[in-house]
């Protein structure tokens, strides 16, 4: 039996560029009777930059949030795949006793390594047991998981490092059709948009073209970084990129306005209207 109350860590982007992910996540959880209690005074998990440059800093920043969740005595639900991966991997690495003692000496806490860290997809997987109010019939979705939900296998949530199914299952439960494609877990270019835009463009355009070739009407994502890299730089034959929580919200009968569908660069509303879904 899954918990119905979680400590909730939104992460920096969910309060800025990815506000629609935060808003839609809260709305769908509320509609499904899942309570999210935001971690008080949360701070940045360190993202790529902390662990890229210092192993210790890359553990200390997430450990601070693990400590906060430990005090709340709740499993910690994380929406951003980057934050999720940092927090979950930190809890795993703190399984090493010497490292745990060192980090606890800096951050405090009793058993930060024992906090259960879950991604929002994991929280919502399996919660749709009755047909939704507005089934996503006729919508073909390419589910994109990226790297940070699935690797390393055995530590993170992903059921498979190459062909995960959790988001596909959820979309199918909502009445959508999911396309089979080979780029579910290929990298989008991650944190390089400012520094090596050329690489992000190469990787994201390859992904977009494969999703289109697979016949998808839209791409569903569970990470603000993936979203931005796929949505912001499209050139031709645009394909909308939505957070999986927005599609879930639509199926549950929430309006495009409530779900902030207008925040994306590629407007998904015309496509959804054509399908009778908005």
């Amino acid at each position: 039996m899954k918990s119905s109350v979680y400590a909730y860590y939104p992460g920096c982007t969910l309060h800025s560029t990815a506000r629609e992910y935060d808003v839609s996540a809260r709305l769908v959880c509320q509609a499904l009777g899942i309570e999210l209690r935001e971690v008080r005074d949360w701070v940045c998990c360190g993202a790529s930059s902390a662990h890229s440059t210092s192993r210790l800093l890359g553990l200390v920043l997430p450990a601070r949030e693990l400590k906060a969740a430990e005090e709340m005595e709740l499993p910690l639900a994380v929406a951003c795949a980057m934050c999720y991966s940092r927090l979950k991997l930190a809890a795993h690495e703190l399984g090493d006793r010497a490292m745990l003692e060192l980090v606890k000496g800096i951050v405090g806490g009793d058993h930060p390594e024992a906090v259960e860290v879950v991604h929002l997809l994991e929280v919502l997987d399996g919660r749709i047991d009755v047909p939704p109010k507005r089934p996503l019939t006729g919508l073909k979705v390419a589910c994109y998981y990226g790297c940070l939900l699935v690797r390393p296998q055995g530590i993170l949530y992903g059921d498979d490092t190459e062909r995960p199914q959790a988001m596909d299952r959820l979309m199918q439960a909502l009445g959508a059709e999911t396309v089979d494609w080979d780029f579910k877990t290929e990298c989008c270019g991650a944190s390089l948009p400012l520094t090596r835009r050329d690489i992000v463009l190469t990787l994201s355009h390859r992904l977009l073209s494969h999703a289109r070739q697979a016949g998808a009407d839209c791409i569903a994502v569970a990470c603000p970084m993936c979203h931005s890299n796929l949505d912001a730089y499209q050139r031709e034959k645009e394909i909308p990129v939505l957070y999986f929580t927005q599609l879930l919200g639509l199926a549950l009968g929430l309006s495009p306005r409530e779900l902030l569908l207008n925040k994306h660069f590629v407007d998904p509303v015309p496509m959804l209207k054509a399908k009778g879904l908005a």
Partner: protein
Amino acid sequence: MDKVSTVSPEPSSGLRLLVEKESGQRVLRCYQCGKCSAGCPVAYAMDLGPRHIMRALQLGLEDEALHSSAIWLCLFCQTCSARCPNKIDIALVMETLRHLALREGRRPAEKDIQLFHRIFLGLVQRLGRVHELGLGALYNLLSRHPLANVTLLPRMVAKGKLSLFPKRAKGAAEVAKLFAKVRELEKTSPLGKEQ
């Protein structure tokens, strides 16, 4: 790269031993099958791909490894680690090399990426959270690419995606202390780790 295939192995390379100690990975287990480079999404942009990096470590080509663009371009997507038949966490080896290059004060092959990380962490240290507009502005200023990434700006502002002014998170003072403690520890023992 010719060099990589013509020099003799250097089984006692200090760099390899250091990487193995800090990453817990055994570099000599790599038998150069190349699955890592084949699956690496950024190998095409690297000077040495992941397989070459592993080989360079085996051969004791320390400068080649520490000065490579590969250790900065690696996105830590971990496709290489997931597919390695010898279960070497190659992404972790890349990361460890980056840490060592930083610690030794090596000039990074991708200096903008290093700068990005520095600015990002500087903001977190001061504000507790990232302020995206500040990150972009500081990066453009300090990298001397004043016009980089400005094309998206008007649309991002119009969509209400960016907050214009940085806000200090309530936990910011605590974060600044955490940074200070980490930096202090790192001064005395690399990675704060003596095991």
